[in-house]
């Protein structure tokens, strides 16, 4: 019963983006089971990928270990995912010396 209630409460998915100088911002939020909201999520997802962002979904293995997995299309996002996190693509960098 408790698990069922929990599942109902977390039926919404949030698309987050890591922003310089700000922390994460919410790009879109909605219930993937509601077609209109799902469409908005898909549009926001595509916009971010088109802007060159990477997308990852934080997950938890059956053993309780936290991981992340890349998603390259909205269809790859698990339906019960709470969050998709967008962040800028990695680039080989050489920031200033930290010595």
């Amino acid at each position, binding site marked *: 019963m408790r698990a069922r209630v929990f599942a109902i409460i977390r039926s919404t998915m949030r698309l*987050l983006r*890591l*922003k*310089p*100088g*700000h*922390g*994460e911002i919410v790009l879109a939020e909605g219930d993937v089971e509601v077609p209109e909201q799902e469409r908005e999520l898909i549009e926001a997802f595509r916009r971010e990928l088109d*802007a060159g962002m*990477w997308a*990852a979904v*934080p997950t938890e293995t059956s053993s*309780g*270990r*936290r*991981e*992340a*997995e*890349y998603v390259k299309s909205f269809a790859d996002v698990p339906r019960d995912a709470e969050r998709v*996190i967008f*962040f*800028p*693509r*990695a*680039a*080989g*960098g*050489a*920031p200033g*010396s*930290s*010595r």
Partner: protein
Amino acid sequence: MWLALGTAAVVLLALLWELARPRLASALARSRAGAAARRERAAQSGYDPGRERRAEQRARALLRSCVDEETWAMYRDLGFLRVWGGLGDRAQGASYAYLVYPHKPIVAYLPQTRELLNEYCVAFPDHTKPYGSARLPDSDDVLAKWMALSADERHLIAEANMHLPGRQIDPERVRRDLLRLARWERERAARSADSVPAA
């Protein structure tokens, strides 16, 4: 008599106004331009002493919600986190690991010997620069590295610039951090053992 004096006063005031008006207009224009320039400079710099701190607080909360409790505690206490290499966890026999620092290269090392292997210089530049800086908050940078290593280690390493240890991070500092990490793990294990009630 009074009429003549009044008329003369009005004419005098009108003459003075005509003489002073260009200077007053010029001074007013300079004042307006100065104020506009000050506003523009403030908007460009956008300096808000609390903004970076608030951003970092948000980033820490997000990182904490994504990683294991132990990993979060490691970052909170030591300022870096360790990610096991080899696309697996230690139980599966990871033979190497990474130290992930904010805005510094990822350092690969051998946990058994503490030998440093490589530095992987990688950044996540946001070229939209919406807030005047391309850098993510520290904890967001760590989260991005953790997600990228966790999701596709090979890809991230392929994107990074690889260097020998010591290129950007002092190897002595990394060795000290590894000792701190070992001590931290011992103390954590001891606390955990203490908290388990005797059978």
